[in-house]
């Protein structure tokens, strides 16, 4: 089969991005595949194109609702009409309709928690699945930063679906996580494609300060000297708001973005950023998904990231166009304390574990009453079905040790003396990446490369509603 021709006929592209072709060839040859591709490298094409050639349906299991929606939107934008997403937020009548017309669709997105329902399983089995895709497969790892217990259930349903061919996709995985993915998804002799995670066009800069005040001043100097488009990761919702206000007061186009905003406002900020109406978005880590902007020049961390994986993902949003981009991490003495408490706070506590074992499903109400965290409930109710209380307590103890390692690796990012690029690659068990020009603050960066390219901002029109209408519908 001529893959280039297939690619052109289906989507109008003339060439593959690195890795895509190898992965697609293996998928079409019938092998299980585990592909580690950095975000923005066109992961979804790895199942889209095979979908064009395979006889049956492609079922994509996606852990996050927002991620699922974004992928569906992207597929549709590429002109793919045969797409449907089924999740538990749909109206029952819509879902019913979806199930009954399922065979009309090629690409079916399903939330992991739905996959275990016997009704759903029956429908999928009757359908004939050509390929099962586990997107964000690292979520299956209980040691990972993104553990979704529901994801482990994929493993449980695979046999019931007749063990279909499986493609596991992820952007970030250490060797340990890779092994877990293979194990839980029962990948038999899989082809593993691991794209070098290193992004040569990104320069890593870490700047340390004694006080918060100095750190803030440094940020203000950065935004005065350096242009966007850029993202400033602020750590908390409140901080993202605060920083945006500061930038605005300096006359710099900025907006804040966090998960507490209503959906429409979040879309507006994404649009404004894509339209170059903004230079900076001050955000929590909620910002990123659904942002497909190739020319982000600068990602600034005003807080320590809560994991190396998260850091790499966030930084990786810069420079998708392969042009030189800067990643700046601002650190003030003591910053790791906030991160440590954030990471460790995530862990279920003994009393929560005991409550869930005592009350089962009813414990869910405690979330609303603020007596229990949702993540804790999610993780523990998974284990409750499988382990006695003691076993779960042990499990959580081990998780705690793993989390401490996570904290240590973030701390190492700021405090280890040496090449930052190398440190990151090592954290992912990858080979020594070499030293590109402007590698990192250890090896030296020519900052003049990045300075001064303040992008032209569109002035926000200040007119009557009729003028606004004229801009919207210029006819």
């Amino acid at each position: 089969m001529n893959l280039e021709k297939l690619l052109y006929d289906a989507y109008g592209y003339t060439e593959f991005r690195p890795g895509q072709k190898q992965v697609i060839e293996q998928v079409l040859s019938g092998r299980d595949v585990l592909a580690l591709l950095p975000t923005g490298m066109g992961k979804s094409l790895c199942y889209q194109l095979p979908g064009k050639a395979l006889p049956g349906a492609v079922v994509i299991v996606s852990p996050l609702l927002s991620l699922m929606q974004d992928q569906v939107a992207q597929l549709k934008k590429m002109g793919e009409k045969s797409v449907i997403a089924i999740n538990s937020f749909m109206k029952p009548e819509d879902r019913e309709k979806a199930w009954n017309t399922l065979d009309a669709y090629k690409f079916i997105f399903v939330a992991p928690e739905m996959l275990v329902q016997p009704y759903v399983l029956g429908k999928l089995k009757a359908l004939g699945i050509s390929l099962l895709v586990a997107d964000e497969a690292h979520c299956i790892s209980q040691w990972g930063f993104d553990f979704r217990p529901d994801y482990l259930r994929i493993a449980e349903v695979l046999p019931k679906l007749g063990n279909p061919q499986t493609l596991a996709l992820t952007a970030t995985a250490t060797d340990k996580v890779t092994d877990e993915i293979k194990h839980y998804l029962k990948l038999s002799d899989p082809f593993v494609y691991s794209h070098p995670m290193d992004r040569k066009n990104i320069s890593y800069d870490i700047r340390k300060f004694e006080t918060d005040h100095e750190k803030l001043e440094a940020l203000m100097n950065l935004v005065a000297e350096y242009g966007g488009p850029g993202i400033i990761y602020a750590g908390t919702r409140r901080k993202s708001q605060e920083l945006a206000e500061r930038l605005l007061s300096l006359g710099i186009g900025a907006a804040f973005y966090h998960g507490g905003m209503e959906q429409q406002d979040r879309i507006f900020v994404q649009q404004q950023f894509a339209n170059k109406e903004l230079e900076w978005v001050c955000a929590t880590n909620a910002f990123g998904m659904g942002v497909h902007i190739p020319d982000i020049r600068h990602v600034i961390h005003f807080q320590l990231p809560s994991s190396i994986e998260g850091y790499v993902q966030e930084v990786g949003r810069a420079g998708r166009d392969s042009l030189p981009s800067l990643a700046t991490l601002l650190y003030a003495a003591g910053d790791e304390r906030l991160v440590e408490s954030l990471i460790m706070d995530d862990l279920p506590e003994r009393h929560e574990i005991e409550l869930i074992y005592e009350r089962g499903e009813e414990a869910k109400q405690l979330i609303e009453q603020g007596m229990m965290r949702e993540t804790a409930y999610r993780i523990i109710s998974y284990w409750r079905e499988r382990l006695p209380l003691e076993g779960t307590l042990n499990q959580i103890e081990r998780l705690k040790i793993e989390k401490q390692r996570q904290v240590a690796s973030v701390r190492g990012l700021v405090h280890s003396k040496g090449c930052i690029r190398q440190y990151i690659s090592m954290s992912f068990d990858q080979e020594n990446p070499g030293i590109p020009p402007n590698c990192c603050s250890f090896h030296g960066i020519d900052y003049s490369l990045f300075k001064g390219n303040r992008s032209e901002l569109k002035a926000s029109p200040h007119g009557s509603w009729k003028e606004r209408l004229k801009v919207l519908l210029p006819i």
Partner: protein
Amino acid sequence: MRFDEVVLTIMKAVDGQRTVSSPYHLIKGKKSGQTIQDIGYFGLHPFFAVLPKLDKQDYLSSIERLQAQGLLIPDENSVQLHRSAFDLEIPPTPLNGWKYRGNESRFFARLSLVVQTMSSFMQGHKRFDPVVTDETVQTWAKAYLKRIDFRSAGVQEAFKNQIETSLALAKTTEAHKGILMERLSGYGVSGLTWDQLAMKYDMLPIDVKIAAVEALHAWLEVLESMEYPMLAGMLEGIIQQSALTESAKRTQKLSERGFSLKQIAELRQLKTSTIEDHFVEMAMNDPAFSVSPFMDERLFESIHHISKELKSMRLRDIKERLPEASYFQIRLALAMRGGIT
């Protein structure tokens, strides 16, 4: 109208008789018997469900402001307004919540997507990230665009003209219309967030939201005339033709044909009390409802007079003072629109 003024207007009506959280439920559009009945009793139709997504914290902030201004006296049991609150001039509002029930946001979502699509196509871009992600709205907008043949320049122009002329007629301020238009997106122009609008106009974000709803309600009022077919087409399923339940509708039909309450109960083989409920529902929803078949004017006035004097909407309190009135008559009298005045 600012959000605090919305809260204050509701509080004036329920002063001393309802809890401090009752305006919150009303503004959010809670469909409980109590809330629905209060709308009729206190004449609060404009404010029902005007902000279905109202955050409790935003409401509590408003309460704090009203207390800080000395308009609201802190009280655990019920709304206790200070006398000065009644002297405040509150501007009239185009809000019409009981009629639109929060559905105006669906109209606006459709409009947003249709405007964005036209804007993009008009400028030669067929691929864009839709500003509305809701699938139901997307499906609706696709069908609508196809139906009106949106690629034709004539259609696009007519569409824009209909927006311009109808919105010009809406009985709301130019500034509010501006806010509404700035919530729309087009090719290369994005909508503004509530916080951005708040900063631009130096208002509270919650006041910007109320302003947008006011502008929408005023606009919808104009669109209902059906003189703007392209926009009227977007009202599909947005305006409830009748606020009545199905069963009450049947009672209403029979009543219009001249059957008495007793006859209707017999015809429909329902209890008289059920039919009485239907009449109360009709009295609440139909401004033209006449009570004359059920009581004379004198009794109607007495019920209102006593309710006002006792500052109470409690049936039992009124019945004690006016034993000759039946409970049904009291309910009916109180349910009439603007019951308390």
